[in-house]
């Protein structure tokens, strides 16, 4: 038995380290779980990118669920995400709200002119102040907010087709199930 002990210790250690590798490759380590899930979205009021005199706010968006997508023209991975949003915006079943994050309005407009604008509502936060309340730390990030203004799901990083099918659509389906 005592001869086996080092071997068992080795197996335990190997198992532990193997678990560590498996655990770290299985999830995105740069994604910090948001403490805002299932909490009311922070209050915000932001000017629209194309009509800066008008605003959109938490209150004005209440009543229907929406997907708040944080993007910017300086954001590298937003380019990856954009075609997916373009293709899926109409099939998601929720309003797609754009959140232009710390961007020069002209850069944002040029970026959208070149790639298309999938957003039904498009707000601009040039200072990034509201983004801090949302716990945004990079772009792209996306928040699914329900009809009562509660954040139900957050995705950090680009929305890929895989994310749409395995996470986003089930989350939206759950919302629609509730409202029925």
């Amino acid at each position, binding site marked *: 038995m*005592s*001869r086996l*002990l*080092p071997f068992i210790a080795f197996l335990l250690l190997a198992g532990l380290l193997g678990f560590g590798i498996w655990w770290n490759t299985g999830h995105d*380590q*740069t994604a*910090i*779980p*948001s*403490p*805002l899930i299932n909490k009311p979205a922070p209050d915000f009021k932001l000017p629209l990118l194309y009509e800066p005199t008008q605003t959109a706010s938490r209150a004005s968006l209440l009543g229907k669920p929406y997907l708040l997508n944080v993007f910017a023209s300086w954001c590298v991975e937003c380019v990856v995400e954009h075609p997916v949003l373009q293709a899926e915006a109409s099939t998601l079943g929720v309003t797609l709200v754009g959140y232009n994050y*710390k961007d020069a309005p002209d850069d944002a407009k040029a970026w959208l002119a070149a790639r298309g604008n999938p957003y039904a509502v498009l707000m601009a936060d040039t200072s*990034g102040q509201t*983004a*801090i*309340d*949302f*716990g*945004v*730390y*990079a772009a792209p990030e996306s928040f699914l907010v329900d009809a009562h203004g509660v954040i139900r799901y957050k995705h950090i990083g680009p929305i890929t087709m895989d994310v749409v099918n395995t996470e986003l659509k089930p989350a939206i389906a759950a919302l629609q199930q509730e409202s029925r």
Partner: protein
Amino acid sequence: MRRLLCVLLLMLVLCASTAMAQAIEPLPFKDHTEEVRFQHLTAELRCPMCQNETLADSNAPIARDLRNQIFQLMQHGQTDAQIKQYLVDRYSEFVLYDPPVQRNTWLLWFGPLLILLVGVGVVTATIRKRSRAVLPHVSTGEQTAADEGDDW
């Protein structure tokens, strides 16, 4: 040669200081105490973007924004605890370099102690077993040989 070395050294120092100046933008502190407090606070908080840097060290855009936000909150008379809570509410406990002792951090806080205790247990058991095995048969040659084989 010596002069050349001096010049090189001076250049190196200048380069280093300009790099520092770019990384940390000056904030209008009203006195040294406030500045020290700010430095201390930002050194205890982690940048959410570049995960192994403090807010004080990080040059990421979000770190700059959060430093400004912390400075603003300090101007509004918020305590260190309030400012930390403000960030935890938005970015989770991830931002704390000094995580609080609570149920989901028990393993983190007491895990090393647990391993130490297991180690002490193993060592104690081994020593006891050996002293028990050796003492009564100290003169028999056979026992010593068996004991050596057991030695790992």
